[in-house]
Every structure is written in structure tokens, then in C-alpha cells.
């Protein structure tokens, strides 16, 4: 049976808890990439706790679920506390991240309950999500498909093949959320190959596209609910403006934040403060 998401939950408090847990995981497993996980927390909070996504923690592949494809693989360590909290697997597993015998790796694999596809290699999620959206339409299913990508991985050309395809096939059950933290591994994306006009680009490809403050969890929730329920024969893109390394001094919005590890003492002091 599908567990309907909890509407009354305090999303800000939940996001704050996930932020702390994500930092704690990184403190215990410094091999994880933390900066790109910190930019996407409010997006996943809104999806999983904000009444947006239908899921069943006890039967993750329940046919009546919405499909959530997490394309930005290594930038989704924050999904571990969320999935554990929601009962996809025991909370104790959070102590085994990157450890022998555990299943929560530095990059999440589809053996983790709640993950639908392979996502360590970037630029694969949107295309597969598009195939799933086509399948659901053919089955006449009302379920929606959400796919979360980074903006850096949109440099992969296969995404644009899917973007063209989705609008041509009027896949209005497909919702792309871009964690637009504007930083790739080595630099700001504007200094690599600019993505500054993503809204115009996606709109010109026939998508319905809006921008939102990706750290305003209520705003993200509201836009996701609205887009999920709009059936206007257009795929939807939500460009969430975010900060890589959000909330961590020295890491936040640093051009090399992807490969930076905050010092353990800094993490300890941040966890004490909040």
C-alpha cells in the first residue's frame, strides 16, 4: 500500500535535520561528496515530505508509486537520511556509509531501496526517466516521473536528445528538477560552458519551465505540486537556484567546492551550533 506523504510536517525543520545528518555522514565517511549533496536538500525534502511524491517505503517498486530518478548520483548523499527516516531501510545503516558490508556507497547504487536507476555516471537519468514517462503514458497510468539532475551534467548531449523527445511526445507526466548550483567539478559552469539561460533554452525546446529559489522549501513544494498537477501536454522543468555547499562557511559557493572536504572540527562546530 502506498503511504501518502505527510502534509503537516514542518518542512524547514526536516530540511535542517537532513542537513545535519548529511554533514554527519560526511564526517564519518569523508569519501562522500558533500557540497553537491547540500545544495539539493530542500528539493528532496519537498519531494518526499511535502506531499509531492507517492512512494511506498515497504515496497519501493510498488506499481502505483511516482518514479523519482536521481540522476545527480554522488550529489545525493542527503537521500540516505531521507530514505532511512521514511523506512526504506534501517536508520542504523547511516553508520555504515562507505563501509565494508554496507550498501550505502560514496555514489548510490540501485541496490539501495528507493533508487530506481544507475546514477553514478552523469547524464543518464533524464533519458531513462523519459522512457519511463513514455511507458506510463502508454499504460495509461496517472503516476508522475520526477528526475533530479545537476546543471553541470546538462553538458552531456544525451540530455538534449531526451529534452527534444519529451516535448515532441507531450510527456506532461515528466518533471525535471535541476539543482542549479552553477558549479561543476572544476569551476563555475558559466566559466566552462555557460548554462545561465536554462529557462530560455528549455522553454525554446517546448518545455514549461520556471525558476525557483531552491533553498526555500515551501516555494519548491508549492511549485512541484502545481507542476505535477498541470496536464497541459508539456514536460515541466523546475530550475532550482541553489548554492553548492549550502550553509558551510568556506565551502558554500566555492568554485572548487565539489572536491573540497570541510575540516572535521568545522563540521563538529556546525553540528553543535544548529
Amino acid at each position, binding site marked *: 500500500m502506498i503511504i501518502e506523504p505527510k502534509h503537516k510536517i514542518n518542512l524547514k525543520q526536516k530540511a535542517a535535520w537532513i542537513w545535519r545528518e548529511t554533514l554527519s555522514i560526511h564526517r564519518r565517511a569523508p569519501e562522500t561528496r558533500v557540497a553537491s549533496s547540500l545544495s539539493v536538500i530542500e528539493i528532496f525534502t519537498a519531494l518526499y515530505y511535502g506531499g509531492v511524491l507517492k512512494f511506498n517505503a515497504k515496497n519501493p517498486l510498488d506499481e502505483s508509486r511516482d518514479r523519482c530518478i536521481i540522476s545527480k548520483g554522488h550529489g545525493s548523499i542527503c537521500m540516505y537520511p531521507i530514505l532511512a527516516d521514511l523506512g526504506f531501510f534501517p536508520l542504523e545503516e547511516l553508520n555504515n556509509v562507505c563501509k565494508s558490508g554496507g550498501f550505502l556507497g560514496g555514489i548510490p547504487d540501485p541496490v539501495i531501496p528507493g533508487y530506481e536507476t544507475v546514477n553514478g555516471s552523469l547524464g543518464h537519468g533524464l533519458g531513462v526517466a523519459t*522512457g*519511463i514517462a513514455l511507458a506510463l503514458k502508454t*499504460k495509461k497510468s496517472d503516476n508522475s516521473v520526477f528526475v533530479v539532475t545537476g546543471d553541470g551534467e546538462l553538458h552531456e548531449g544525451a540530455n538534449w*536528445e531526451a529534452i527534444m523527445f519529451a516535448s515532441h511526445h507531450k510527456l506532461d507526466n515528466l518533471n525535471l528538477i535541476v539543482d542549479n548550483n552553477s558549479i561543476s567539478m572544476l569551476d563555475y559552469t558559466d566559466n566552462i560552458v555557460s548554462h545561465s539561460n536554462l529557462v530560455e533554452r528549455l522553454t525554446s525546446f517546448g518545455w514549461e519551465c520556471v525558476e525557483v529559489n531552491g533553498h526555500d522549501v515551501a516555494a519548491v513544494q508549492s511549485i512541484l505540486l502545481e507542476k505535477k498537477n498541470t496536464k497541459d501536454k508539456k514536460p515541466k522543468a523546475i530550475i532550482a537556484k541553489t548554492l553548492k555547499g549550502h550553509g558551510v562557511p568556506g565551502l558554500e559557493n566555492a568554485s572548487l567546492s565539489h572536491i573540497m572536504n570541510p575540516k572535521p572540527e568545522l563540521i563538529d562546530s556546525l553540528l553543535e551550533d544548529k
Partner: protein
Amino acid sequence: MSIKPLPMRDVFLEKIWREMSVDSLIFFVSADFGSPVLDKIREDFPDRFINVGIAEQNLINISAGLAIEGYKVFAYAIAPFITMRCFEQIRVSLALLSEVRPMNVNLIGVGAGYSYVVSGPTHQCYEDITIMRALPNFQVLSPADHITTSFLFNSCVAANGLRYLRLDAQVQPAVYLLKPPVISDGFHVHNKSNSVCLIATGFMVHTAFKIEKEMSSNGIKLGVIDIFNITNFSKKNLKKILSQYSAIVTLEEGFRGRGGLDSMLFEFISESKLDLKTLSIGVDPGYSFELGSRDELHEKVGIGVQSSLKKIQPFVQTVMNKIKE
């Protein structure tokens, strides 16, 4: 045996068309690649025929998405494009994902070897066996005629799995008109001898027959085996058959010594502890822009009947001399 030949591609598409009318779970996805028989599929099943355009990466991604939702997918494009243009999509969202999500995806690549004769090296395909057999969870299927192709189709719809089927773009003589191929073995024994066995795949099975005939007219009997399942053949049965020989010659329309049929069989021989001398007939590694008929091109790259015989005759002689000793 060369009666009533049909294009492999059209036989396969005809069977898909028939099956689509009784199985609503079949999707046909093309990367803007067609055939007259395909028009029937387009017209009769517009909801389950998808042309992704010239976009092989998306071809695979869309196929993966459809497949994990329970559809049986046939993805269709020119052989080098459906294997090499989108290899990482195949690896990640088919081979790797299938470890945890059961799926049925059949990649149909048309244009094995030199079958696009005048189109040159972009459209010809000499690397696909190597590259596709590197992937776990994939079966590499390489039929020599339309009858084998038809039987292989049955296994594509019968069970979940990932398969790469390499089809010749030209009409080839029928090999199995009188007796069907042993599909469960993955190979079929045509001629038997006790000295040297030719083991060929795809188009080269026909070359092997010509070589066998030529050698036979000179009083030398050779075995001929058509291996059409490169990855999942019966090792037990092939070992039993090859243990009666002193040597094998591999024949493939792909690069020699680059991980294709020859490497596969040499690994198999070593693994099976078979005491066999070996000779590999394959394309001399390199790309050529010369024009000519398929037979002419084959002679230039060392896999034509005459160029093969030049290597096989002395090899067989050496083997025979050893046997006499």
C-alpha cells in the same frame, strides 16, 4: 544449400510485426532506420513504434525506461551506431541496471561486417563482437541466415534478457532449409572431420563452406561449425565436439586478434584445457577506404576465400603432418 534466400532483417521485422499483434507489451524503437517491412509496424502499431530520430544515446535510454516498466523492447539501428555511439548508455542503463531490474531489451544492429559494401568504414562494423561481448548480462547473437534469425527471434520474446543481434544487410543464402539450427547449443555442426575444424560466425559461415568445398575437392576433409551465440553457447557440447580435432580455424568478419570470435574461442580452448592448434582468419586491423565488391574487399583485408585458403592450406598441411607423426 542456397535456395530461397530472404533478408534477415525483413524476416525478423515480419516476426516482430506478427508478435506485436498478439503481445501488447512489445515496443519497437528505431533510430530513424527503416525497411519496407517496418512500414507495416509503423502503420499498425503507431503507439508502440517510436522513432527517436538520429539519436542512439536516447534510443538506449528510452528503451531502458520502457523495459524497466515491463515492456519488451526491440531497438533498431545500423550495427556500428547501435553499439558504439551509445556504448556507455548500454553499459549503465542496460547491462548494469539489469543486475537489479529485470528487463527484456534486444538491440538489432543491421550491417554486420562489410555488408554496407560501398558506405565505407563508418557504416561497416568490425568491432561489435569485441565490444559487446565485453558486457556481462548481454548475449551476442550472430546468425548466418534468415532461418537462424527467425529462430533467434523466438528466444528474444520468450524470456527477459539483454541481447545484441547483428544482422547482415545483404541477402545471404539459406543454411538451414533442410534441418533447423540447434538454438539451445548456440552453434551448429555442419561438416565433421577429425583433423581441422573451421569455426565461423555470420557471413563467414558461407565463406567457410566455400573453403571446405575447395579443400574437399583436393581430398582434405574439414569440419565446419556455425557459431551464432557468441556468449552463451553450450561449453560442454562444444568441448565434446572439439576434443575430436587437432586444430581449429576461426573465421570472422571483424578485426583479427582484437577480442572478437578468435579471442573468445582461444580463451574457451584454454579454459577447457583442449589441446588444439589455432589459426585466426579476421580482418587485418586497420581501416581501409577502398571500393569494391564485398568479395574484393574481403580479399584485400585477408578474409576472402582465396586469401583465407593461402593461410589455411599450409596450416592444415602442418597439422596433418603432425597427425601422421
